[in-house]
């Protein structure tokens, strides 16, 4: 029950700061920071408990039961949740701390703290849920908080536009998500994870009528849920809000739009793997969407000039990576990348924020350069973050990204294609990351005198979180190191994807077994290395990523292709070396072009102007949406406003109803004369009317 406090502590600080904002006088951090750190401490405890083999799953309370529909709030902490808890509370704690310095002197200081606390609560409620309803609740709440925080500087037009965009695009995704949940309810009759995942296998061949064609229900559920993930995790087609969301203050970009909220989609797909695993079609859609987004984001990031935009597109691209991993069934790899990415991407954002903070709020990297001498700590931490993002050994990104690539390599013919895309993206990632890095810290000094005179290293509260995250960016990857010692990430996360978590509801039923779906799929092969729950500890087998990666089997099942070269370590090393070389060459190219002022990029841009303009303008996707959705909608809305609203609704309906009601009220008021004899008369009339009505009809 102690776990309940994990989300409730940030909620408490939100309520306190929210209610007593007047009295806070820019001291909100005195409440929020200790609370979120306490929450982090409890998360560490929860993590230890889960690592010690004590996952929990219980219902807290039931709101109003309506027939079979029992909206419950519950807590489930298994390995998946525990790792998310750790990430969310860690990054949130550091961001809280960072905010103290970054938002110092801002007019909405206390409000900002109230909202990031609320966000932390919502995100924790989302990951700790044991049912779809609470998941949806958290899902909507984080969306709301994201909106509120993007629009923090509400007097800036760009902020409000960005916040609308984020909100609306997320609504589109949420609609699909909600429909998916409705369909789950309709199919299984429960929203409890355990019940749904146990029963969904029985519905694998059910079909439903969709506009006249019969479609598989499970595929439909998976795809609808995935629409939600597309919105929340900024995948292709609902991606354009994420870069715009950078209009919000930088701590938000780090917390919400890099480390936590945007990863909710990947978390959800992993959580719902029993559903996704049942549908090859859905898995394929997931994998292809992810791969395309990874590529799409990377190509745009190549040419952007706003430091935060580059990091934002890189986030989109990395999210694509994770989604792709889920799509080939490599959930462990996807989740592992989510965790490492959360750390180093938060670091990159915070470091970018530190740069912006130090350089008089300038965000355009073309106006920076030679900043190294002003801010050594920021320089070093950003270097580590960039190395991690580029995937250079021994930083975090190297391990997690290579694991995804390796899983892709093993996932059949389609997998090979995905692997190729992954490698290309890795190259571009290394290039654009270091393009920014070199342009900011080396290159030509393009700063104005004023910026130069104000340039300074950021205060301690800003640099300490940077250092903590930088250390994390170096070490967290080793948890998933496939080379020597046990692969901890697989040991820890692997079991989630093939063992049940027993569920203790408030009321009835005993244990619900989550079926070993992946196992079933492979039972006919005769060997089933993961039929038993993965062993914890130092089992030498555990070092073998393949034996320990049931996900890879699922991948092969989903991809429907051969399943070979599994135990081939040499191959894995070769691929690693190859991708390391690719990343290295990306960095080298950035070095060659941007370390010193250089004409090459400009020449290249000029000779491939079409491509360059395309990338610079985000492949005109915003313009396309503007033309296809926004402008027609606005025109339509304008028409509705003029005709339907002003005339039909306002004049006829509203005024009509209001006038009628008012006249009715006045007439009735006329009867309310205040004279007793009139009242008695009305009462008598009432009696006679009722009597008459009764005996006449």
């Amino acid at each position, binding site marked *: 029950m102690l776990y309940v406090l994990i989300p409730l502590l940030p909620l408490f600080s939100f309520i306190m700061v929210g209610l007593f904002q007047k009295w806070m006088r820019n001291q909100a951090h005195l409440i929020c920071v200790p609370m979120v750190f306490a929450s982090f401490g409890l998360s560490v405890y929860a993590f230890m408990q889960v690592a010690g083999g004590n996952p929990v799953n219980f219902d807290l309370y039931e709101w109003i039961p309506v027939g079979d529909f029992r909206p419950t709030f519950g807590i489930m902490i298994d390995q998946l949740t525990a790792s998310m808890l750790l990430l969310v509370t860690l990054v949130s704690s550091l961001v809280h701390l960072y905010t103290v310095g970054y938002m110092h002197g801002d007019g909405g200081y206390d409000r900002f703290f109230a909202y990031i606390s609320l966000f932390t609560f919502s995100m924790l409620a989302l990951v700790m849920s044991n049912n779809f309803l609470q998941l949806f609740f958290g899902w909507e709440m984080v969306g709301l908080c994201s909106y509120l925080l993007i629009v923090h500087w509400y007097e800036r037009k760009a902020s409000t536009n960005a916040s609308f965009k984020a909100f609306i695009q997320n609504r589109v995704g949420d609609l699909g998500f909600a429909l998916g949940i409705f369909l789950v309810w309709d199919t299984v009759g429960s929203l409890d994870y355990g019940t749904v995942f146990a029963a969904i296998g029985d519905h694998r061949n059910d079909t439903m009528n969709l506009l006249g064609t019969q479609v598989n229900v499970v595929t439909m559920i998976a795809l609808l849920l995935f629409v939600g993930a597309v919105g929340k995790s900024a995948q292709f087609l609902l991606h354009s809000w994420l870069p715009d969301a950078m209009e919000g203050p930088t701590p938000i970009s780090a917390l919400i739009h890099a480390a936590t909220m945007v990863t909710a989609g990947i978390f959800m797909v992993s959580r719902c793997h029993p559903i996704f695993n049942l549908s090859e079609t859905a898995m394929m859609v997931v994998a292809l969407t992810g791969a395309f987004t990874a590529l799409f984001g990377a190509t745009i990031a190549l040419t952007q000039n706003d430091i935060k935009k580059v990091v934002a597109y890189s986030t989109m691209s990395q999210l694509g990576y994770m989604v792709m991993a889920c799509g080939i069934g490599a959930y462990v790899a996807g989740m592992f990348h989510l965790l490492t990415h959360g750390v180093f991407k938060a670091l990159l954002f915070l470091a970018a924020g530190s740069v912006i903070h130090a350089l008089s709020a300038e965000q355009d990297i073309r106006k920076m350069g030679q900043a190294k001498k002003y801010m050594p700590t920021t320089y070093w931490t950003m270097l580590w973050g960039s190395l991690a993002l580029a995937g250079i050994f021994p930083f975090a990104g190297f391990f997690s990204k290579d694991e995804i690539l390796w899983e892709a390599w093993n996932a059949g013919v389609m997998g090979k294609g995905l692997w190729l895309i992954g490698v290309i993206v890795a190259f571009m990632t290394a290039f654009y990351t270091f393009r920014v890095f070199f342009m900011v810290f080396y290159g030509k000094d393009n700063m104005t005198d004023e910026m130069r005179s104000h340039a300074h290293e950021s205060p301690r509260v800003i640099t300490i979180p940077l250092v903590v995250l930088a250390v994390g960016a170096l070490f967290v990857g080793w948890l998933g190191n496939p080379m020597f010692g046990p692969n901890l990430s697989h040991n820890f996360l692997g079991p989630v994807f093939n063992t049940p978590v027993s569920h203790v509801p408030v009321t009835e039923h005993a244990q619900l077994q989550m079926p070993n779906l992946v196992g079933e799929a492979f039972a006919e092969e005769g060997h089933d290395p993961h039929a038993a729950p993965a062993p914890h500890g130092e089992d030498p087998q555990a070092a073998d990523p393949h034996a320990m990666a049931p996900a890879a089997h699922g991948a092969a099942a989903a991809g429907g292709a051969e399943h070979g070269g599994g135990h081939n370590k040499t191959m894995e090393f070769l691929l690693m070396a190859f991708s390391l070389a690719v990343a290295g060459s990306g960095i080298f190219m950035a070095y060659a072009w941007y370390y010193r002022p250089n004409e090459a990029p400009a020449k290249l841009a000029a000779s491939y102007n079409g491509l360059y303009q395309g990338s610079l303008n985000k492949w005109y996707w915003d313009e396309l949406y503007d033309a296809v959705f926004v402008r027609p909608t606005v025109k339509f809305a304008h028409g509705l406003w003029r005709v339907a609203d002003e005339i039909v609704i306002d004049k006829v309906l509203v005024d009509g109803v209001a006038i009628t009601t008012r006249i009715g009220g006045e007439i009735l008021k006329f009867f*309310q004369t205040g004279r007793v004899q009139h009242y008695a008369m009305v009462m008598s009339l009432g009696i006679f009317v009722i009597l008459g009505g*009764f005996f006449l009809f």
Partner: protein
Amino acid sequence: MNMTIPMDNVIALLPEMIIAAFACLVLMFDLMLPQGRKNPLAWFSLAGVALAAFATFRLTHQHISAFADTFQVDPFSNFFKLLFYLIVALVILMSRAYLQQDRIHIGEYYHFILLVLTGMMIMVSATDLMTVYMGLELVSVTLYIMAAMKRYESRSTEAGLKYFVLGSFSSAVLLYGMSLIYGVTGTTNLAAIGAFLGDGVPNSAATVGLIMMVVGLAFKVAAAPFHMWAPDVYEGSPTPITAFMSVAPKAAAFAVILRVMLEAFGGMKSDWEAIFTVIAVLTMAVGAVLALVQTSLKRMLAYSSIGHAGYALIGVVVGDALGTFSVMYYLVIYAVMNLGAFAIIIMLRNQGLMGEELDDLKGLSRTHPWAALFMLVFMFSLAGIPPTAGFIAKFYIFMAAINAGYILLAIAGALLAAVSAYYYIRVIVVMYMQEPETDHVLTAPAGLRLALVFSLLFVIGLGVFPDPLADFAQQAILSF
């Protein structure tokens, strides 16, 4: 019939006896206290209520039929008695400042409240038309006096007189109905009437009697078209008494309606169902429409209280276990949220400020943010917006209606609830979006604060955790 009174009967009547005794003792103590120092009476009355509550608690799950089946202790009646204790306690807590302000802080006030309480307790336990009437008259007559307690103010005496004249009229109608029923069945016992009437053999005398009784009871809950006394009386009475009148006697009358209709006229459900359907819709409509055009906050709440009776009547129309449950649940929630809203009006009463007009709330969020926040929650709850208890209460009513197939009634209720949301939200608009006009500093004594905080926690708490009360109410209907 045995004229000695068995011990059983005494135990069954114990809570009523405690309250009646305290009501008399209050009068005696009143003589010993000097003018203007009547506070001990409040605490004394509260002690009496607490004692009675304890006695009722001990009887919670018992079924005792006493006094030749005219009086019955069962979970149903105990549920209502506990609600009355709660209401009386809240009213006593919140009223002192107002009474002192208006120079009517006299011992009789506590006496009357306890007398009304006694009457209501008899009403909910009555299983005979005679006891029903006795309880009802004890309540009514005392309320006539209470309405006129501000003797020096014509508004108040006028309210008392109007209430008295119209109340007597309705009592006469009720009695007429009862006598017809007695004439047809030869008994006044509810169960015996039910047995005699059986499954609705058409009998026009019985039908007329039923209609008369429905009308009489509809008057007591201020249902349209028998509601016209309510706005005048509610507006004219001193505010704490208005608060009390708008919740407690109404709840008692609903308990009587439920018991009489289901036990005595269960076989004629199709008849009274039709009447109550019409009355319910009319009541909701009158409550919603007339509240819109009010400028007086107190009068607006009077109409709102009429409207709420309409929603509870939906549950009566449904008439099955779920319907009964929903009515009981609704009454509890309505009582607390309405008292909360009235507590704010009481708070507004200040030197030179009547605090009864909507305009008196202007800019309250600037001058008294906490009071505005409380009022906001109560208004949301009255409008039925989650996560407040008002939502849950309406939810159960509509669910019961839909469950039993009264879809149209549920739709009508939902639509009128939407209309009524307008004037609740208007209160919020006035508080939050208009500039303050006065610089009155409001004070809230400890008792009022306690009542406010309790109501707020109750309204929010039951909105989030509706189960405990729902379980309790569910057990209470099992006695039917």
